[in-house]
């Protein structure tokens, strides 16, 4: 019975292998560069990718194709990327990225002409740096725009042109560090409450001390006490004081419930909290979801006709 079931499932999968490959036809015009089966990408993003591709083709003859699917189907993601690259005739120094939104994985392949320049580890690194965070958070437009901008920057750096227009909101690898005054100002703005509190405490201490000084000054012939500006932090008698030996403590009377209990005393001041990092980004805002820290490694060097190496990412769901 098990064998029959396995055979049935195998036949189904085999059938869809053919169906999946034939189902994906390249789009016309802008749709060629962004094939969006999911409908999750905005028109603005598609237009941006289309414009970017115009500049890439003009300057380098390169194409950057992005395929957004619900499921990969029966085909392995890496194989699908290579077969789409070849079937759709992407240029030999182009790139094709295929992503499954439901499976939360993706793959990428590049043409033969740039296989040695843009390696599998580069693909993994670009996915990890510029794509997966937004993608896993469901910010698909941002993920796609960030990734394609960075890939265009890679073309610019490799071939010496300028196709990428980096929008200010997107992360760039060489973001300049904030200057000294910006850091100080940012620190003050974020800790304004604590700073005001500290100033208020200092003001109250000085004011109280001045009142005490005036009180003694107006007294008739009384000697002025020694002035301790930081009296609350310093010992009044910094010398060693002789203490007689403690007499044995008398045992308390039994059933003694007469008289008031002793005064418990004050607790000490708590210390100040430490200062946060100067960056405005929270240090750890991500929940500890089962997502692995590094993307799933993929094998490289798959020899397609044009699609050379394949890189990708994925996570446990």
């Amino acid at each position, binding site marked *: 019975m098990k064998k029959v079931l396995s055979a049935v499932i195998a036949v189904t999968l085999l059938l869809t292998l053919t169906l999946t490959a034939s189902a994906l036809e390249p789009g016309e015009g802008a749709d060629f560069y962004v094939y969006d089966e999911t409908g999750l990408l905005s028109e603005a993003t598609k237009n941006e990718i289309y414009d970017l591709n115009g500049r890439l083709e003009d300057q380098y003859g390169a194409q950057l194709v992005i395929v957004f699917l619900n499921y990969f189907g029966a085909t392995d993601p890496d194989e699908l990327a290579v077969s789409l690259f070849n079937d759709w005739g992407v240029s030999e120094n182009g790139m094709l990225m295929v992503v499954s939104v*439901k499976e939360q994985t993706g793959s990428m392949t590049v043409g033969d002409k740039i296989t040695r320049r843009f390696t599998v580890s580069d693909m993994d690194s670009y996915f990890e740096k510029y794509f997966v965070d937004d993608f896993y958070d469901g910010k698909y437009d941002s993920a796609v725009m960030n990734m394609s901008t960075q890939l265009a920057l890679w073309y610019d750096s490799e071939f010496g042109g300028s196709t990428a227009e980096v929008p200010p909101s997107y992360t760039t690898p060489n973001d300049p560090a904030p200057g000294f005054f910006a850091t100080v100002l940012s620190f003050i703005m974020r800790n304004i409450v604590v700073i005001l509190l500290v100033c208020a405490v200092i003001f109250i201490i000085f004011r109280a001390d001045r009142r005490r000084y005036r009180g003694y000054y107006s007294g008739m012939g009384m000697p002025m006490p020694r002035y301790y500006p930081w009296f609350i932090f310093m010992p009044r008698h910094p010398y060693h004081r002789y203490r007689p030996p403690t007499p044995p403590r008398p045992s308390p009377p039994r059933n003694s419930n007469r008289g008031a209990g002793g005064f418990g005393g004050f607790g000490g001041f708590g210390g100040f909290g430490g200062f946060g990092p100067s960056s405005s980004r929270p240090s750890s805002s991500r929940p500890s979801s089962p997502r692995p820290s590094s993307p799933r490694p993929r094998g490289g060097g798959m020899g397609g006709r044009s699609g050379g190496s394949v890189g990708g990412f994925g996570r*446990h769901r």
Partner: protein
Amino acid sequence: MKKLLNDRRLAAGVLAVAVLVFTPLGAKLSLQRAVNKVQRGLAVEEYISDSVNAARNLVTLGSSLGLDVETDTLRDYMTACEKLGDNASPKALAQANRDLASAFEDLRSAIAGQELSERDAESLELYTNAFTGPQAAIGRESYNEDVDKFMTGTYDKFPASLIGSLLGVDPPEYFN
């Protein structure tokens, strides 16, 4: 009372009992937690749900063609899948999905054997793709590999092997 509190032998005995009781208890809880964590790694509910949706469309197509037997069978397995809650065991999920896939294939074959209009043929292809996408994703799930890793790396090793067998901590179920 004071004498009891000062009795070193008694204190040592109490400590020994506490260690003997609480150490295995703590170890059992830790192992159980690790097993549960592995089992929570299986995330196929969405895939099964998408498969059921595709099957529902196929049922509609099958009903319109008068294929009542196959349609009813698939409908039964769809209901069984939908009844599985979030806490369904991997084995139960796998069984339900296998039954669903088998019934889907039966109905698909029956429909394909009919004389279909162009529109019905297109629908059949569409629903088949919609079904096999999530099924292939289930096939790519790395859950069983994770269970293997856990078994060889933790559960089958001392002391987890001893704790598991003595204190009744079952290993994580495979999805098959």
